[in-house]
Every structure is written in C-alpha cells, then in structure tokens.
C-alpha cells in the first residue's frame, strides 16, 4: 500500500485535521513505515486462525442496571471552549 497525497488528504478530511506541507511529508513517511511494519504480518499463514479482538480469555463483564448520580454540570462543561444555556456550543452543524 502506498501512502500518496490523495490518501493523506482523505485522512485529513476524516480526522478534521489540516496539515502543513511539511507535516504532510512527515505523515507520509511515518504512515509508510507503519504500513510496512504491519505488512510483515501478511507473510504469515492465517488461514485457520480466528481473528483476535481481545488478549484476555474472559467474557460477560457486566454491571447491574442501577442508576447512580451523574456529574455536576459545571464539571462536565469545565473544559468546553464555548458553552451556552448549559450546553456545549459548537460551530453550526445542524442541517
């Protein structure tokens, strides 16, 4: 897999990030080396190997359905760059 400018632009779009030309070049190099590293796994025969999503042999970790108290709104909104009427305020997204 080659990391070209088109792919970098697509990733910028998905992650809502804007990279400078310099950062783009660096990202291209970094991503290429990551892909190459992971590509090594393709050399293995995984025909009969079940894909693993968790390293632990453990299932059914549940909590009982009991409602507890939530956080104070002031704390929840503490790090919000903008807030209004008890809500987080963000650029217009509603169509």
């Amino acid at each position, binding site marked *: 897999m080659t990391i070209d400018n088109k792919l970098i632009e*697509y990733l910028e*779009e*998905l*992650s*809502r990030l804007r990279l400078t030309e310099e950062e783009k070049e660096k990202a291209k190099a970094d991503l290429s080396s990551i892909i190459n590293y992971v590509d090594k796994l393709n050399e293995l025969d995984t025909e009969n190997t079940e894909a693993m*999503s*968790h390293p*632990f042999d*453990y*299932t*059914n*970790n*549940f*909590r*009982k*359905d*009991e*409602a*507890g108290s*939530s*956080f104070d*709104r002031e704390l*929840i*909104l503490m790090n919000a760059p*903008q807030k*209004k*009427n*008890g*809500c*987080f*305020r*963000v*650029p*217009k*997204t*509603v*169509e």
Partner: protein
Amino acid sequence: MAWETVIGLEVHVELATKSKIFCSCTTEFGGEPNTHVCPVCSGLPGVLPTLNESVVEFAVKTGLATNCEITRFNKFDRKNYFYPDLPKAYQVSQLYLPICRNGHVDIEVNGTKKSIGIHEIHMEEDAGKLVHDPWEDSTLVDYNRCGVPLLEIVSEPDFRNADEVIAYLEKLRETLIYLGVSDCKMQEGSMRADVNLSVRPVGQTEFGTRTEMKNINSFKAISRAIVYEAKRQIEQIEMGKKVLQETRRWDENKDATYAMRSKENAQDYRYFPEPDLLPIEISEEWIERAKAEMPETAAQKRERYVKELGLTEYDARVLTAERALALLFESASDICKEPKEVCNLITGELMRLISESGTSADRIDIDPEKMARIITLTVKGRINRNAEKEVFEALFRENIEPEQYIKEKGLMMLEDDDLVNDTVDRVLSENPKSVEDFKNGKEKAFGFLVGQTMRALKGKANPQTVNKILREKLGSM
C-alpha cells in the same frame, strides 16, 4: 408502466433500562441539558465502559419475540465518525456479530397475512441531541441522551406499501411495550424509523436505487413520506432521470422530501472491534431462562380476556391498546374477581378521566387494590353506581382511601330497613292518588312511588329493598 415499491426499515428503540448502556447515568427523558452526564458518556479520555446486563437481556427477549436466532458469541465494534452528537467521535455498535439474526414479524393488512423478515437486531448507544441556536447561528449540544441503550431492528426489504409498514411498526411497538423492553414513544424519540425505499417495474427482480429517509417521527408522517417518495422516484425515472442514492429529509410542513447536503466521505465508518469491551457469551441456559420469563403478548391477553373472562372482542382490544390499562385490569380483577366490572370502569370512567385530564394511560397511577375495593362495595350494593364513579374519580385524582372517602361524603347506602319502612309509609300516605292509580293497574304509578321514596332517602337506599317493601305494602293495602 406498472411500478412496484420496495421498502426496508431500520427501527431504533431506546431500551427501558434505568441506567445508560456503559455507565450509571439515568436514562430518564427530559431533565436540564447535560445533567445526566458523566466522564464515561461524555467521552473523557481514560475512562472505561462497563456493559449494562439488562441491555443484553432485553436484546435477547426482543430477538425471541421476533423469531430470531440469538448469536451465542457477541462482540461490540466501533463505528467511527466525526460529529458533535458523539463526544468520543465513535459510536459503540455491533457490525460483525449482531446479537439477533434471521427473524420475522407476522403482520396482517386488510385480512391478508404477511411475514416480514428481520435481517438483524444489534445493540448500540444513542447519540446526544443537537439544537440549532438561531441567535448565534451555532449548534448547542446536550449529552443527556448520549449512551442511552438502543436496539436497531433491521428488516428485510419485504414491504410493498405504506399500510404494510404501519402494520409492522404497530405490531413491533405492541410487542416491545408488552415485553417491557421499551416504551416506544415516537414523540419522545424512543422509537424512530429510517425508511429505505426504491421502485422497480413490476416483474423485475433486481432492486432499483434506494433513498433513505431518516428519523420521521410519527406513523402518519411515515405513511405520507412513503407515498410521496415512491411517487417522486417514479416521476424521476419516467422523465428519463436517475434516482440518486442519498439521504432525504421529510418536511412535515411542505409534505415533501428533500435531499440533505451529502457529507463527503460520510459512509467511511472504519469499523473495528471495540477493544474496551469484552465479548459476551450467551449460554443455552440464558436463552431458556429468557424464554421462561417471556410475558404474555397483547394478542394472547386479548384471547384470554374473551375466552376465559367473558369480555367482548372490542373491550379486550381497548384494554390491551395500552399495557398500563391491561396490567391495571388484571391486578384489580385478580383481587375482586369481577373482570367485567373492572373492564367497564376502565373503558368508561377511566378513559374519560384520562382524556379530560390530558394525561396518557402510561402515566396514570391507580392502586389496583383500592380500585378492587370500590368495585366490591358496588357489587355488594353498599354504594350505588353514581357513588362508585365519584369515589373512583377521587382515587384517580388524589389516591384517596375509598372507605374513608365514602364515609366522609356520606355515600354509603342505607342498611336500615326500619327507616325505609317508615319512609315508604309516609310516601304512601302523602300520595293517595298514585296508590289509587296503582290499584287500578297503572304500573307507572309504582315507578313514581319508588322515585318519591328514593328521593326522600336521598338516593341512599338499595332500590331492590325499596321495591320489595313497596310491593309488600301495596299488596296488603
């Protein structure tokens, strides 16, 4: 050319759990913005989700009620997208191993039965609510709903018209409400439907290009949107244009759908297994237990009410139209053993009180034990029908103690036969003309004398007792 409409539905229902799917914040509807929020559901870094066991239980029950296969080994997946309604920038959902698959829901439209396939049902979390702020042209975000557990029920494209869709939604709603897994209130958003629709010439086996209409919030609007969109697509094709695969919004006021601005790359969700949640294994024993706990369906209740309790089909339908009414009916009937009396009080008085007070059946809070006591008193002739209604209304409004209320208001019927005797004597001596008329065969005069006696006793005597004493006395005159 004759056209056929093909419709598939994605129905989202919010589960009636007390707490959210991955944290213990309440799922209660309403509340001041961002007051049902914690670090887990607001997506702060470093927190870990823990799955609410009831969500899995409700999903299994829903699967069983819709004839699905239950997936024994379940996992969650991340659906990544960047939008402010999800603070984590991903929704925890199930893509690869949904909890239920290959089911069906049977419907009936105008006497014709049809089976609608259920492709799958999966568990996921709801997103927050975005409100447009017209003053500053910005968006305000409330995360109270974020993390409320959802089931997404995906049907096969088996519907051919709006009537089938509505019949299916009504059946699904009734099933889920009676299972106790969701309250399915479309106006509060606890049941929402996305409609996938395409058209094709009759006889063609391949599907046409489909459009998706999202979050239409009433059965009526869904029905109208389907009729409109099918017509629009047919017109496009007949004009030689192509139907575009897109998401369209139903505009209630304009009675039309219009294309939403398509977000670039919106479809690239980059799903991958959710590493923060462990897999779920559903044992045979779990499924058997869920089967044993499955409550009676509305249809089963209707059949039992008619066959075993002697109600009419109509009354059985009225009682089961709301689960709260059916449950009240059953509890009160169990106590007083007078199902027909309980039914009459619910379908008559209670329905009137609910409509007059502008509340809804699922919000009423009537103690079935007190209701049963009122009915027993009426059946035994201790209070009359008017008093029954009055006491019941007081129970509805203020949860009074029936016996105490009856005593305070003096609604108890007289049990003093001497008083009735004396009153009858007085009425007879005051109305010699009527006595004469009765002797001459005028039955009407008897009714008049009963009326006079009842009036003198302020309606608190048992009419049967008054009748009996009057007949005796007139007979010996």
